[in-house]
């Protein structure tokens, strides 16, 4: 008789071998999974080591307070030895305001700061359509930052109190009635224009009245004659207002009720202030223009299609620099004699045209990606062309083209550096050249470029991350 042995309970799993757990496993899988990978890892570690060992002492020996490059170097030599290199951040400490504001008068810095803060409030409803908490957080955060900047620039003055009240009010609006913030968005161009350039407040207000005339005529005519006629007649009326009536009305109001800020001429603009003025203005105008061009390119009307294609292909075929030179050299030939035209405005127009052509191609890609059934369904519902575009086509097409549109915007913002070639003081070349021409800072090159490049990086990287957030939010398929 044999003794039967029956195990009653399960054997517990034995621990995995040491090479299959924890950090060792991670290292094996991610860094040393094969001979090629191991070599690549070692190579990467070496490159990393070389980069850090080159740059770390330079960064660590950085000097923050000095009045010239020579002084910086002597401080570094005194503290770290004669052969050690050291960054001279003192240059940025002394000249940061030129990089940010250009030659804008220091006692008026509160104006660009306020305008920059308001920019984000105006953007909030566009960026976070229905997300109340994100909107109020953004408004509150930017308000706090703007007020801190104002205190830094101006001390605790009247403007600071005004800004605190303004941003507190706007944040409260964002938390309670987010739709109301859209008013700020619509009014922002005029507020910013007035804050940045100054002059009489009646100029921007009467300019805004032109748009109101346009809207009024459109709402009167559009139901009878269709949106195209309404829009074009409204546009003509607004142009008549701007050309012939506006100046009289604004002068009359100015005589009645003089409200004005100190006027700042365009040549005082520079640095990132200039980059943002050109970038924001061009971005906001070029998107609608690009959509119209894309629609024109897909239109059934031969003439409109030909004009759109010709325009887009011409603009995309030439470098931006040649367009900027057109703005500075050739526009004087094409406009009536003795027309005086602000250089910043000229540059904004040409940059807008340039990026509108690129946006048009991106949007066209989005339109082409829509299935034909969508157009046919819109027709079957009895929607007319503009209704179909507004309600069915554009929401889908624009969603598809978000990455492309945002990368056009990033490209545009980076391209604002090119305005230095026509004599404007952009942060990269204009201001840095001025700083490097100073006898105190002659021979400095890494520091200004790292500073300017860093700010550009933050802005552009932020934009690309936002586009990824938006893509994720709008994604409706389940892949």
């Amino acid at each position: 008789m044999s003794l039967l042995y029956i195990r009653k309970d399960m054997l517990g799993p034995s621990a995995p071998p040491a090479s299959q757990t924890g950090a060792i496993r991670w290292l094996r899988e991610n860094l040393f999974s094969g001979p090629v990978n191991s070599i690549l890892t070692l190579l990467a570690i070496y490159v990393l080591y070389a980069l850090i060992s080159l740059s770390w002492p330079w960064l660590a020996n950085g000097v923050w307070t000095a009045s010239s490059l020579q002084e910086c170097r002597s401080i570094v030599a005194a503290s770290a030895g004669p052969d050690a290199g050291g960054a001279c951040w003192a240059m940025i400490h002394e000249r940061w305001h030129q990089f940010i504001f250009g030659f804008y008068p220091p006692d008026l810095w509160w104006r660009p700061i306020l305008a920059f803060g308001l920019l984000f409030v105006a953007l909030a409803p566009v960026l976070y359509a229905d997300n109340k908490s994100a909107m109020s957080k953004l408004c509150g955060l930017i308000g706090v930052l703007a007020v801190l900047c104002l205190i830094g620039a101006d001390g605790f003055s009247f403007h600071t109190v005004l800004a605190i009240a303004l941003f507190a009010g706007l944040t409260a609006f964002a938390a309670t009635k987010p739709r109301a913030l859209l008013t700020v968005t619509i009014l922002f161009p005029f507020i910013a224009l007035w804050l940045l350039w100054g002059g009489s407040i009646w100029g921007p207000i009467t300019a805004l009245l032109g748009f109101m005339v346009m809207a009024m005529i459109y709402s009167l005519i559009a139901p009878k004659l269709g949106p195209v006629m309404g829009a074009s007649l409204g546009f003509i009326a607004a142009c008549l207002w701007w050309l012939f009536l506006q100046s009289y009305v604004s002068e009359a109001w100015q005589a009645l009720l003089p409200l004005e800020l100190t006027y700042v001429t365009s040549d005082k603009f520079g640095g990132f202030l200039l980059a943002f003025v050109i970038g924001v203005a061009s971005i906001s105008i070029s998107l609608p223009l690009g959509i119209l061009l894309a629609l024109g390119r897909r239109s059934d009307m031969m003439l409109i299609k030909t004009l759109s294609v010709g325009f887009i292909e011409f603009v995309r075929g030439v470098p931006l620099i040649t367009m900027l030179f057109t703005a500075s050299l050739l526009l004087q030939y094409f406009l009536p004699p003795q027309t005086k035209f602000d250089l910043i405005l000229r540059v904004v127009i040409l940059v807008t045209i340039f990026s509108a052509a690129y946006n048009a191609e991106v949007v066209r890609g989005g339109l082409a990606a829509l299935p034909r059934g969508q157009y046919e369904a819109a027709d079957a519902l009895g929607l007319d062309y503009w209704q179909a575009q507004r309600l069915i086509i554009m929401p889908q097409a624009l969603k598809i083209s978000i990455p492309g549109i945002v990368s056009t915007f990033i490209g545009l913002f980076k391209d604002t550096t090119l305005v230095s070639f026509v004599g404007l003081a952009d942060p990269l070349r204009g201001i840095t050249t001025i700083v490097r021409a100073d006898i105190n800072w002659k021979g400095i090159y890494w520091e200004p470029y790292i500073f300017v490049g860093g700010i550009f990086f933050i802005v552009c990287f932020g934009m690309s991350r936002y586009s990824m957030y938006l893509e994720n939010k709008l994604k409706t398929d389940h892949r």
Partner: protein
Amino acid sequence: MTLATEPPKANFRLGMLIYDTRYRSYTIQIIVLILFLLGVAWLANNTIENLAAKDKDINFGFLWNRAGYDIDQHLVPYTNDSTHFQALLVGLCNTLLVAVIGCFLSTILGVTIGVLRLSKNWLLSRMMTVYIELFRNVPVVLWIILVYAVLSETRPEPKDFKIVDGTSKASMILNDSFAITNRGTNVPSPLLEHPLPRIELGGYSLNLSVLACIFVVAASIWINRILRRRAAATQEATGIRPTTWWKSLLILFVPIIALLFAMGLHWDYPAFKGFNFKGGLNVAHAFTALTVALTLYYASVIAETVRAGIQAISKGQSEAAAALGLRPGRTMNLVILPQALRVIIPPLISQYLSLTKDTSLGLAVSYLDLRGTLGGITLNQTGRELECMTLMMLIYLIISLIISSVMNAYNASVKLKER
């Protein structure tokens, strides 16, 4: 009896121009045409008035006048006695040189980085991500100026290379063949002992030696293609692919090496004599900075394109390849890349176009390309803004159109053939 098929004949009313969709498009087009012509007429009229006020005319005759300025880097013969037109050609060649080298190098670098970005190696893929984001999010002008500033301010002066008592302050690199000074990079230049004669053709002298080399290389590539096609045909027929790699190597490299040997190729090394480097070729920092910066910047853009293209291929493809027993390298080469290429090529075309257009940023470092000669010095000397700018825009436009049509033709040839 008539059937009610005839639609009621509506009389034409003026209102139908706006309300009837059949006529509305014509109305709109005619209005747009009138506005467009009015706009053009207005611009033309302004231009004529302005030109008259400045006592100028539109005349391209200045192109045949003496240019009177020097261009250090010229691929076609040029002296300051040459015409403005010759300067234009020199500028165009300089533009194209940077564009071609930039496209070539940035493609190689970009594809490598794009593939490594997807590698399973954690450290490597993170490093590549940092590279891509760093270069993509900063204006390319910054990289151009930075490379230029670093080259011209950190490098020693030529006189530091002078050997005093057996030592010098600075030394040449790569076996004493390259010297990077603050004025330029001195590199060895190829010289031919028995070059083929130059032939004169309508005022231009053609370098027959270069043409012969190009012809031999092109012929080798063509013969190699025939060889590969034959091998593929044999493989289709018998299932066994004949060994071709050594034949390919022979066909590709032996003829050109033989030709160069026959012409007596040797290198002229730069050497420090007197006060500066003699011999070799002095490459200006403007050229180096522009090429290096454009390559690094566009490599990051192309890397993103490549990554997006590879990720667009569904996972099933690589799984199917693995199921067939293909190794990862072969999966990449035979399955993933050929399909990814179709996604990659259209955006790649526009990257090449942008790179070509961005060569005009050489302005930041005074590189004498098309914009520097025609749109720069010639424009300032002759004061003919309208003519110079028009001509320059036209040339850039033609280059862009040629690149995009060539690449579109290639795109059409690799496109998936559907019904």
